[in-house]
């Protein structure tokens, strides 16, 4: 008995392997937002991220002939997603397109004043704080080393267990524990001043 025996995604993927396009469409429908969630942590530009997410599924289809149901489908899918995302980030051409915080600020500055929410309302204050925190979180996560970032994205945002992260990243479980521990300490060190300021304000 394997963990993937009851994974109906595996059954769908086996149908895809047989050339079933409807099964492929079903897989894309099921997993598109999870793939987008991973990819968008690496490519902050939404259009670039969606394009890469599509590329992930095209890679799934292209790899259908070599697919073997040896693990949960999501493990295989996330491995493809993480690898393509890292490759994209490492590519110099794509790296230039990764949205930096500076670009975000420039975008914000280019908005018309009348489009901005009323800064006096309490909900706006909370929204602004949330946006600032989100921007800071993005900056902190983006600053993590690639392997720490991948571990965080899979564990925190995809809910993968240490064992699943280890399988996806082809690492030992103890190595994943170490990676996540260092990542969390990094995140804490960098976010704590911001959280303290927000607490004071």
């Amino acid at each position: 008995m394997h963990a993937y025996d009851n994974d109906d995604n595996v059954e769908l993927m086996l149908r895809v392997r047989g050339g079933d396009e409807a099964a492929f469409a079903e897989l894309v429908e099921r997993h598109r937002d999870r793939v987008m969630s991973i990819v968008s942590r690496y490519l902050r530009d939404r259009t670039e991220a969606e394009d890469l997410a599509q590329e992930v599924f095209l890679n799934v289809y292209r790899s259908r002939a070599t697919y073997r149901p040896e693990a949960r489908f999501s493990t295989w899918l996330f491995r493809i997603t993480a690898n393509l995302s890292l490759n994209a980030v490492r590519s110099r051409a794509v790296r230039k397109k990764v949205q930096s915080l500076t670009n975000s600020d420039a975008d914000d500055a280019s908005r018309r004043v009348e489009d901005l929410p009323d800064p006096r309302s309490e909900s706006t204050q909370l929204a602004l704080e949330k946006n600032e925190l989100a921007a800071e979180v993005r900056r902190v996560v983006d600053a993590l080393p690639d392997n720490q970032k991948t571990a965080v994205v899979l564990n925190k945002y995809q809910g993968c267990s240490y064992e699943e992260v280890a399988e996806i990243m082809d690492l030992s479980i103890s190595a994943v524990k170490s990676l996540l521990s260092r990542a969390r300490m990094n995140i804490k060190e960098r976010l704590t001043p911001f959280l303290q300021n927000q607490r004071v304000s």
Partner: protein
Amino acid sequence: MEQRENVPNSVEEARDYLVAYVDGELDEPARTRVEDLIRRHPELEEDVAFLRASWDALDVDEAPRTSPAFVDDVLARLRDENGSGPRVRMFSSRRGITALAAAAVLILAVAGFLVLSEPAGEISEAELVANMELLEDLELLEAMSDDLELLAVLDDDLLGFDDWEGEAR
């Protein structure tokens, strides 16, 4: 105080255990020791609070969702690729046909050369040139051959053909 392995013995050492502590990954002795240190050192308690808060803060960064046309777009790209598949195969087929045609031409050329250079039952031009002297006396030689065959038929032993053939061998 007694030093023990796998258990933090100071505030600094305890910091290395905090992530595992927050994740519930510590065994009972280590967890008890960390909790003891946290009670006695407020800075550790604050570290734990910020460790949890900073991890929870990651939830603020919500990922964008895919566009409504995402599935259709993927399928369209897939059909584009499949559409280009036959073109790739056609290109491959053209290459195959070209290779086959080249092979056929080569085979025909070699066969033609063999046929022309060694026609069955005929003498090549080169052989004719090389044996021009013999050809010039062909009629005489043929007459001699006829005479010899006639004589051989008449009396092989008389002409000593056995000895001559023996020397030739």
